[in-house]
């Protein structure tokens, strides 16, 4: 069965290839068949392989396609490695990706770049699959950059508008900062291990370094830089809200299944190194905690539906980082999976809403859509509940609760992390339901022009189901202690050690979390349903704070001041390119010679003969003088 492993990334690639080469000639019906079909087939292959993998209870599948590079000891193969961690990732990528593809078939139907869109999507999925299946870090980096390229292409998909191109460039450049750090980290890894094979590194690292070694710390921090860039964490989070310029399915794909989770994957994949550098772990935790709170407050003030979701993504990834930081590896991955389901659901539903309202993004111009778009309302509600982690019925509750619990009870956990996470959960609950109330309740402000069809509803319903049910595979102690997920991951990711004296108070923490979530919903209802004037008052009384949060804590302004302006200034100084002057001189010199020599090419035969004669005389004279 493992011989089929290569098919998983290859099928989306083949789809992309067909669409790129023949896309303009294909009929409108064939494009989604190829685009979604290739990913669907890939998902099917994933199911087969996954079933085979589990039923044979193998440790890992390995497949080498070909030797890629072989130079000076660096010999990465184009090889795929399947273990429980990557299995979960490819499962999420292919299935959520497939649902998003189906959704896109209807969503993008009127767009001119229909085939182009599916080609990019396929390539995106392919790159992400290569990333998670790579058996060495070089191939992983290849997929990593492929993901970056595709995100650039897709964010700037509607390239005729300048601000979309700007957003795409911003995403590309900001993530490039992280990628550079990661590349340096990879060089250092190679220098230390003389290999970039992940399994070999994982096996050798504990022998090479003692815990707390400086090299490990530096490498871990550099890798973290890459992860931070890709996953839009502090301080490189600024690109993600702008990335909403792309079509909604793209946002769904970026936020849920691919791209931003790549950072989580990278840290989980290289957890061996992080475990050897406790400081790095702490940094990961701090970054996660800070990000989740900051992004949460920023989300509170947004009025663009998709921007709220974008900040919520940053915030949720912050939870994952926090979990990684405290060593709760499987909790992070669990939250990743659940988050993929409900965030894809939310984005797709938001896309449907926006489409229904003539590409209206402003939540304050929406309202009263409960009746008009019932399917979307109910699915959005399920997604929102899951995001807000309403207790018991939602999957989000189980995953987030696990993180909350482990930030306190895990051996690396502390009370500050717990409090931050709790604050984040409260804010999450508020902005989530603020979004829901503003969009679906109240008076109808914009006329609904387009009711989504079956192609968009089915993915929504499937994702809604997953957002509810997927949580029950991992239940906390107080709910029957089901550990299917973490057991599955345990061969790859070590289980977290829980401090003994916290075991007894787990139910208390769950209660607090549930209370926080519900009180958040109540606050949202208070401000936006019962007394809407209250929110305006609050807004005017704390206008500066609102503005600060609205701009995402002023990070864009800060970076603009710190990096962009000086760089533009330098560029404007060097407009005439000082270094080029030397080469301009060379060009001028060549031009001069050209003019001189072309002057001799006068076309007048007698001059040529004259040249021959003079040459002859010179030769003869030389011969006479020397002879």
């Amino acid at each position, binding site marked *: 069965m493992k011989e089929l492993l290569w098919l998983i990334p290859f099928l989306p690639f083949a789809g992309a290839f067909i669409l790129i080469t023949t896309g303009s000639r294909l009929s409108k019906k064939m494009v989604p068949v190829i685009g979604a079909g290739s990913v669907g087939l890939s998902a099917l292959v994933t199911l087969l392989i996954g079933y085979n993998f589990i039923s044979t209870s193998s440790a890992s599948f390995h497949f080498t396609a070909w030797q890629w590079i072989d130079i000076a000891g660096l010999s990465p193969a184009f090889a795929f490695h399947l273990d429980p961690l990557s299995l979960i990732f490819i499962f999420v990528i292919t299935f959520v990706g497939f649902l998003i593809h189906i959704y896109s078939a209807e969503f993008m139907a009127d767009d001119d770049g229909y085939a182009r869109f599916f080609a990019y999507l396929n390539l995106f999925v392919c790159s992400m699959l290569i990333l998670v299946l790579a058996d060495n870090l070089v191939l992983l980096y290849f997929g990593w950059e492929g993901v970056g390229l595709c995100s650039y292409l897709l964010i700037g998909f509607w390239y005729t508008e300048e601000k979309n191109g700007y957003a795409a460039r911003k995403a590309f450049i900001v993530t490039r900062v992280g990628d550079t750090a990661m590349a340096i980290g990879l060089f250092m890894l190679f220098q230390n291990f003389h290999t970039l094979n992940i399994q070999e590194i994982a096996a050798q690292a504990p022998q090479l370094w003692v815990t707390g070694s400086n090299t490990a710390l530096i490498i871990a921090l550099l890798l973290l830089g890459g992860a931070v860039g890709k996953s839009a964490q502090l301080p490189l989070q600024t690109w993600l809200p702008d990335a909403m310029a792309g079509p909604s399915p793209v946002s769904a794909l970026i936020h849920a299944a691919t791209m931003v989770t790549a950072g989580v994957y990278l840290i989980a994949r290289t957890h061996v190194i992080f475990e050897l550098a406790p400081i790095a772990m702490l940094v990961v935790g701090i970054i996660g905690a800070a990000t989740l709170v900051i992004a949460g407050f920023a989300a509170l003030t947004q009025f663009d539906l998709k921007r709220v979701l974008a900040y919520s993504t940053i915030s949720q990834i912050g939870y994952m980082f926090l979990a990684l930081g405290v060593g709760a590896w499987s909790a992070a991955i669990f939250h990743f999976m659940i988050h993929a389901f409900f965030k894809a659901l939310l984005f797709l539903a938001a896309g449907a809403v926006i489409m229904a309202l003539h590409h209206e993004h402003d939540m304050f111009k929406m309202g009263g859509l409960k009746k008009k778009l019932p399917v979307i309302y109910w699915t959005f509600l399920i997604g929102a509940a899951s995001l807000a982690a309403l207790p018991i019925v939602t999957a989000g509750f189980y995953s987030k609760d696990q993180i909350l619990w482990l930030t306190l009870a895990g051996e690396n956990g502390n009370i500050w992390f717990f409090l931050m996470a709790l604050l984040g959960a409260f804010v999450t609950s508020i902005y989530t339901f603020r979004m829901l109330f503003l969009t679906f309740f109240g008076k109808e402000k914009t006329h609904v022009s387009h009711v989504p069809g079956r192609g968009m509803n089915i993915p929504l319903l499937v994702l809604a189901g997953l957002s509810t049910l997927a949580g029950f595979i991992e239940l906390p102690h107080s709910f029957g202690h089901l550990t299917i997920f973490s057991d599955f991951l345990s061969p790859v990711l070590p289980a977290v050690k829980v401090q003994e004296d916290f075991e007894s108070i787990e139910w208390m923490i769950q209660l607090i979390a549930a209370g926080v979530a519900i009180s958040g919903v109540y606050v949202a209802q208070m401000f936006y349903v019962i007394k809407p004037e209250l929110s305006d008052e609050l807004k005017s009384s704390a206008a500066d704070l609102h503005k600060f949060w609205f701009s995402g804590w002023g990070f864009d302004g800060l970076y603009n001041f710190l990096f962009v302006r000086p760089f533009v200034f330098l560029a404007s100084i060097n407009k005439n390119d000082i270094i080029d002057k030397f080469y301009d001189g060379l060009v001028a010199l060549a031009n001069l010679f050209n003019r001189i020599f*072309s002057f001799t090419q006068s076309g007048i035969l*007698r001059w040529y003969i004259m040249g021959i004669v003079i040459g002859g005389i010179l030769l003869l004279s030389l011969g006479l003088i020397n002879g």
Partner: protein
Amino acid sequence: MNEVQTVSGLLLAGILFVLGLVGVLIRRNIIFMLVSVEIMLNAAGLAFIVAGSKWAEPDGQVMFIFILTMAASEVSVGLALILQIYHQLKTLDGDAANKMRG
């Protein structure tokens, strides 16, 4: 009775060659240039004949015959070119045929 010095023959060839060269250099008329080239070729042939005579070998004359055939074909092609040039440029000025100047 044959007491002609080889040097005299070679000098004659040299003088004729230079005269042909002068002709090529100073005349603008392409027919004159062609004629002057013929003079130069002829002078070269003379040098061969002189050398052949010095050693009493036929090789000099053989070379002369080769030069002759070359001159004949050169003249035929050259005249055809002259006809075309005159046809297209309406002049025999060799300098006018510099249309491909860079």
